[in-house]
């Protein structure tokens, strides 16, 4: 249970980060982020990968949706619904695969790291790691 509590906390923290990045995208609020050659949020967020498929929707909006679902799944597990374990594992695996792609984009394509994005990536990884042992609880023994 305490692990699911941590998953819920990580989801809510990720939700906060994603909301912040989305608000910055749609407003003139300056982004609180150091700017060096390697660490540069502006460079990452203003790139073609900062929006979904060339639309005006920032990638962080997808983060809001992902962390919201993740929080709901963790809350479901906390309320005793062990059958959600596989769904939670699949959802977190989807998130982790997306994170790996975004990390590839940051390092290889853009050559810059966004610290806010990295914070969200670490939270996704944490949620996935929590789901690994937790998933066994929902597995039927042969």
């Amino acid at each position, binding site marked *: 249970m305490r692990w699911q509590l941590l998953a819920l906390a990580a989801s809510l923290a990720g939700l906060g980060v994603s909301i912040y990045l989305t608000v910055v995208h749609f407003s003139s609020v300056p982004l609180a982020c150091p700017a060096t050659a390697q660490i540069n949020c502006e*460079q990452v967020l203003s790139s073609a990968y900062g929006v979904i498929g060339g639309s005006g929707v920032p990638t962080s909006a997808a983060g809001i949706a992902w962390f919201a679902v993740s929080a709901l799944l963790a809350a479901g597990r906390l309320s005793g619904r062990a059958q959600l374990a596989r769904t939670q594992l699949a959802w977190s695996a989807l998130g982790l695969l997306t994170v790996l792609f975004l990390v590839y984009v940051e390092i290889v394509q853009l050559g810059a790291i966004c610290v806010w994005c990295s914070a969200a990536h670490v939270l996704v*990884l944490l949620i996935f790691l929590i789901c690994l042992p937790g998933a066994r609880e929902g597995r039927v023994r042969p």
Partner: protein
Amino acid sequence: MSTRPQRTRPLRKPVSSTPPWVAPVAVVAAIALLVAAFLLIRWYTTPLPLPPLTVDATQQVVSSMTSLPASELDAVGTGSANNLIKRVAGSPLTGPNGHPEIFYMGAEYCPYCGAERWPMIIALSRFGTFTGLKTTSSSSTDIYPNTPTFTFHGATYTSQYVDFVSVETTDRNQNPLESPTAAQQALVNQYDTSGSIPFVDFGNRYAFSGAMYLPDVLSGMSWKAVADSLAQPTSPQAKAILGSANLITAAICRLTADQPATVCSSSAIQNIEKTLG
């Protein structure tokens, strides 16, 4: 005859003895390896910068790009340049020789500064003369790596119309190079609230920050190749660089009361001036 005792079958399958921490640690290790692989790919795929040109070769490139016929510049107009120039209201900025001052602040590592120096040199050369320009490239590790450009560090500019003052804060490896004075920093703070570079102030009448075109138009090109492409008004480089140069020229013409007339009275510059406000 003896009989072997029958072995009893186990009632349950043996439970795996793998500790629970193995899977998370394996995942973290795999991700660490993947990130290391990404870093290696980045390292090996980043092209090396071209070696800087000699003084003579640099002079040839500068001469080629600053001696383009006015008719070609007029034909390009604003080209594909994005007009970033904004009107600002400040007390007139006067340079060390008593002329209206054009103040530039940028850095050698910055690819946007690298892109913007091309049109700045072309535009300013219509009002005066640069000496001591050197070739360099933007950072190899930043976006638009190794953008071919020049540096204003160590260069001098003379003109009977305007004064040009530049500050290149760091070299292409981000080592400190020049520092703005308190007054220059105050200008930047006042008109460049986003903190973007390059920042250019035209006598406190107009200012802009950022590049008027994306540096990828210069990607992989040598300085000579860029200079040669400017002779073709329909090339992407000419549309971007000469279009930006015309915008900068128009802003300078506003400072010099349209002097010299040979530059400022052209229909292209006059049309742009009207859009500057």
